[in-house]
């Protein structure tokens, strides 16, 4: 029975692949053509093997999680699990939905969940983002539609992961084909099913006709979808304007104004929880004496006109952020943060007090478009700090930071993998891991307590202390939350979400 | 002889526009060539003899302007022939052998290819026929193992052999007229004689007319029937070989004859004679005798001399202010200064 369905599925898919290449932009043929890829293509669409933003977008179309997190209110709702209860500090029991089928016809049941969770929990299987899964001890089948999941330690953020990166795979198929096969022909329960995958070039998907069980994600609004990996944003825009694609999600804020003004097209901005910050080498690995002085860092905090930067460059519903996390995230208490207002005079005074009345020179690093950094540099120049910008590719910069430590000051950002919990950002950077450039033992201890305690109140308390320390000592100067900018055919029903995940299957034609 | 003329040329002129004005390298040359007869055109480099031959073939550079009162070849007036009609004559009816055997063959193709190409173009597409003809002619020009030579490239042959190939090539279609432009200048002295001998033989055998352009009076003496002596674009003396050699009338001819190199001792490629002075500028309106600035007998008359030749008997003529008697005397005594 099972092999037969796999064969049938493969045959159907092959047939689909043959007819696949034709999809026309615009509302006429019930198809949607998407362009993404400016940050590089998805190396493997198996959602456990890549860690790109586009990989997340793709996975939401093809796979489902146990739990659904409502994108506006961040409430948890049933998805593949219909209900759950906690059996002690480290065990959750999930009741599974009946009547759900994978794209290859394999019915969804406890075996799939148990297999998936145990597979990803095993470090030898090489899940790329280990912190997404390394809290799982194991999963056990209770009956055909009930599963127990045991955690290695009390893990309050578990639902963030179970509603985010942890997608449920079909056990028989995945055991047979592994990540390679899952890449070539992904199979899930999601609203879209994959017709063909051409690595780094194109993915063709079609509506999953079986997605009728009332999923909160909703059914697909188009019958066919083509995703094109286009590395160059300008090429994406050219394609959009030339009628080659329907929507792009990679453009800049200025493009929003410009494309929005073109008849036939709409553009919009949607704020995200991606948090930008200026990081400082507080642990003094770079040997830059001035930046090691908290007073100098305060001077910088007062010198940078974040409001103007947000208003002029980022725009949309971006705002200045004062916390080393995104305010909607659990534990991210804005009141705990020490805030710094734009005040060049005060900055100059602080700088003089710190012993640098004439300012100093500093190397400044970023991987983002230079204009944001240039705006910061312009402000710093006004108080006498001459920042020399080095813009590097992301991986080269991270390498320089971690291994050489020669980056006294850097403008970077973190998207928290769209997880609405402060541990996804602050704990990543300040728990003395490879990305920790403050190396504050006390801070690390507070964060550890916040990460592992099951009592929300205790967590909040510890996180608040951490926020106060980070902003008080200015290990980071939080800057603003990023905005994702979209441009699309004007007849498309587009909605932007704060978790930086466009739900492409929900967008239909007017 | 005159009844069997294959080429009659009257008042042939070549003009070339250059930046400084109009250059007149050939200024009114006339001659005839009869079947089986050899006409030698003699003169220094730059006297216009090569351009004369190119003008006959229609191979002048594009910028050059050719005019003539008469140019009859095999009874056809070829003055107004367009490139296509000329091309139909060249290689078939009139063929040319050039001075530089080293560079006159295309390095990219075999000898056989280049030989047969003329035949196939003009006579017959039949490859084996052309091949047979090529082998026949290669043997004719004294090349051993002719068949195997066909597949050789020019760079594999010596200069003498290449010139033999060139001769064979010119004969491929059995032309009526062969123009040989200093065919031996670039060759070793020993080979020069062989080639000339060969040319003369072949001409005899195939009953062709031949124009041999040379600056080597020794050669002329051996092979010429008629001689034209050219200087600065004009004919200064012409006539049957015997008459010109025995009785040179123009001071220039006399000067040339004085300095015939002793065969075998002259260096290869050495310039003809040593008539002192330089060739005049041929740009612009030219008047009078061009030789006057090098001539021991020049007088004011020479500056306005019309250029009409003085005719003596037997087609012997020369262009000079001197009377034949005066000329004969001075030539015998003094020649040039």
């Amino acid at each position, binding site marked *: 029975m099972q092999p037969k369905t796999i064969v049938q599925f493969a045959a159907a898919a092959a047939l689909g692949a043959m007819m696949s290449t034709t999809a026309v932009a615009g509302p006429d043929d019930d198809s949607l053509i998407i362009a993404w890829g400016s940050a590089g293509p998805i190396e493997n669409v198996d959602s456990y093997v890549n860690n790109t933003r586009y990989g997340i977008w793709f996975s939401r179309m093809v796979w489902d999680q146990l739990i659904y997190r409502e994108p506006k209110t961040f409430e948890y709702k049933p998805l593949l699990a219909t209900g759950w209860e906690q059996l002690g500090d480290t065990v959750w029991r999930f009741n599974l939905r009946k009547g759900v089928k994978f794209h290859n016809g394999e019915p969804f049941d406890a075996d799939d969940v148990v297999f998936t969770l145990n597979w990803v929990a095993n470090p030898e299987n090489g899940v790329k983002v280990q912190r997404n899964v390394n809290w799982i001890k194991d999963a056990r089948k209770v009956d055909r539609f009930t599963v127990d999941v045991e955690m290695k330690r009390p893990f309050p953020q578990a639902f963030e992961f179970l509603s985010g990166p942890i997608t449920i795979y079909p056990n028989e198929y995945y055991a047979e084909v592994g990540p390679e096969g899952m890449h070539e022909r992904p199979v899930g329960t999601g609203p879209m099913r994959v017709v063909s995958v051409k690595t780094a070039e194109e993915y063709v998907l079609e509506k999953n006709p079986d997605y009728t069980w009332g999923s909160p994600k909703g059914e697909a609004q188009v019958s066919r979808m083509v995703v094109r990996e286009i590395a160059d944003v300008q090429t994406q825009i050219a394609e959009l304007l030339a009628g080659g694609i329907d929507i792009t999600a990679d453009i*800049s804020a*200025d493009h929003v104004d410009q494309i929005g003004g073109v008849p036939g097209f709409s553009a919009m901005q949607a704020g995200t929880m991606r948090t930008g910050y200026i990081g400082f080498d507080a642990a003094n690995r770079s040997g830059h004496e001035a930046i090691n002085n908290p007073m100098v860092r305060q001077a910088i905090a007062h010198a940078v006109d974040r409001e103007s930067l947000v208003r002029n*460059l980022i725009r949309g519903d971006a705002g200045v952020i004062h916390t080393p996390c995104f305010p909607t995230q659990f534990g991210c208490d804005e009141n705990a943060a020490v805030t710094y207002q734009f005040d060049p005079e005060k900055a100059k005074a602080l700088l003089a007090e710190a012993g640098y009345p004439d300012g100093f020179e500093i190397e400044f690093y970023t991987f983002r478009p230079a*204009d944001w950094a*240039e*705006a910061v540099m312009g402000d710093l120049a006004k108080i006498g700090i001459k920042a020399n910008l*080095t813009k*590097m590719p992301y991986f080269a910069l991270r390498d320089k930071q971690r291994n050489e430590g020669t980056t006294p000051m850097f403008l970077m950002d973190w998207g928290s993998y769209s997880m609405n919990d402060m541990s996804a950002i602050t704990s990543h950077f300040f728990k003395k891991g490879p990305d920790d450039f403050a190396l504050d033992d006390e801070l690390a201890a507070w964060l550890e307590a916040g990460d592992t305690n099951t009592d929300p109140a205790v967590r909040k308390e510890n996180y608040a202390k951490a926020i106060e320390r980070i902003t008080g000592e200015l290990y980071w100067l939080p800057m603003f939350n990023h905005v994702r900018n979209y441009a699309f055919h004007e007849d498309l029903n587009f909605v932007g979400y704060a978790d930086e995940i466009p739900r492409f299957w929900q967008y239909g034609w007017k | 002889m005159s009844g069997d003329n294959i080429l009659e040329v009257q008042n042939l002129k070549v003009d070339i526009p250059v930046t400084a004005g109009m250059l007149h390298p050939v200024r009114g040359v006339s001659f005839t060539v009869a079947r089986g007869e050899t006409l030698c055109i003699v003169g220094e480099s730059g006297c216009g003899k090569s351009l004369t031959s190119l003008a006959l073939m229609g191979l002048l550079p594009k910028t050059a302007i050719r005019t003539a009162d008469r140019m009859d070849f095999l009874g056809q007036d070829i003055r107004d022939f367009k490139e296509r009609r000329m091309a139909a004559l060249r290689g078939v009816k009139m063929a040319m052998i050039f001075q530089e055997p080293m560079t006159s063959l295309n390095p990219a193709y075999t000898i056989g290819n280049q030989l047969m190409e003329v035949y196939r173009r003009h006579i017959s597409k039949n490859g084996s026929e052309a091949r047979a003809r090529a082998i026949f002619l290669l043997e004719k020009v004294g090349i051993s193992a002719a068949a195997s030579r066909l597949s050789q490239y020019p760079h594999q042959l010596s200069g003498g052999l290449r010139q033999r190939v060139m001769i064979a090539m010119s004969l491929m279609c059995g032309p009526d007229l062969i123009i040989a432009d200093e065919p031996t200048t670039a060759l070793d002295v020993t080979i020069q004689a062989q080639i000339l001998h060969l040319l003369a033989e072949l001409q005899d055998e195939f009953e062709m007319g031949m124009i041999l352009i040379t600056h080597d009076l020794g050669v002329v003496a051996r092979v010429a029937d008629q001689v034209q002596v050219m200087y600065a674009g004009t004919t200064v003396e012409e006539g049957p070989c015997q008459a010109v050699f025995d009785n040179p009338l123009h001071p220039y001819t006399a000067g040339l004859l004085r300095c015939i190199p002793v065969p075998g001792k002259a260096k290869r490629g050495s310039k003809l004679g040593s008539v002192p002075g330089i060739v005049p*500028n041929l740009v612009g309106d030219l008047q009078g005798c061009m030789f006057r600035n090098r001539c021991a007998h020049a007088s004011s008359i020479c500056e306005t001399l019309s250029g009409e030749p003085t005719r003596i008997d037997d087609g012997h003529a020369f262009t000079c202010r001197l009377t034949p008697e005066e000329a004969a005397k001075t030539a015998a005594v003094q020649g040039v200064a």
Partner: protein
Amino acid sequence: MTDASPSSQPSLRIAEEILEPSPMAKLRRRIFKNYSFLIGAFILVLIVSIALLAPVLEASGWIQDPYAQDLSKRLNNPFWHEKKFDADHILGTDKVGRDYLSRLVYGAQISLLIGFSTMIISGFIGTVLGVSAGYFGGRIDMVVNFIINTRLAMPVFLVAMAAVVAFGASLLVVIMVLGLFLWDRFAVVMRSITMQARDLDYVKAARALGCSTPYIIVREIFPNVLSSLTVVATVEMANAILLEAALSFLGFGVQAPTPSWGLMLNEGREYMFFSAWLLALPGGCLFLLVLAINLFGDGLRDVALERER
């Protein structure tokens, strides 16, 4: 490979022999008849003087500080637009509100600096290699030939990008990388010309007289190769400028906020469909500069060739 002039036809060769004017008069005539040389030289002088005078222009208020930014005046339009135009910025402003004209003017400095420094470095390397190979021949020639071929086998653009990633992008790194890569043509040309020069009679004579090798190279060989050296130098300078632009365009070139034309192209590209001048202006400047250098070099070659004949 040089253009064969029609004078290689026998008849015209005669004509030219007859018409030989004095060498200097001929050179002069060649220069003034050579429009490409004149046009190239004119544009080049213009750009160089603008680049050199940029600080003066800034001091006298014609242009502004190319680094002075004002976020509230970003992306102003140039003078041919009525909307969002500010008389302070004739050619508008860039995306952080810097005066575009000033950046273009200062950009000339950067492009020329890159072109010139690269040319000096690569010219030095290439000439040393080429001249020694050509002069000494034998084993040295073999080794130099190998080095040249190795260099030619390296995909310049890719390796330059890798080098920039490795050493971090900066003006200095870009100049060094290009300088270390673009010497091949110098070496090839110098080698063959030195070989020819080595066999000239007076060079042979100098050797026979026992002149020292450095003396011969500097006094006898070098004057012979100078004209070709200049021609290759112009080609390489143009090449270096284009390569820098391409590197900057992909983000592997000089760092912001340096006003480099290549970087401005990179930045202006974001607006190519809507504010095309942000792309067109630096692109046009780059085009003009490279065109001028090429014309100048072509003219120089013609003039030099004519003289050598």
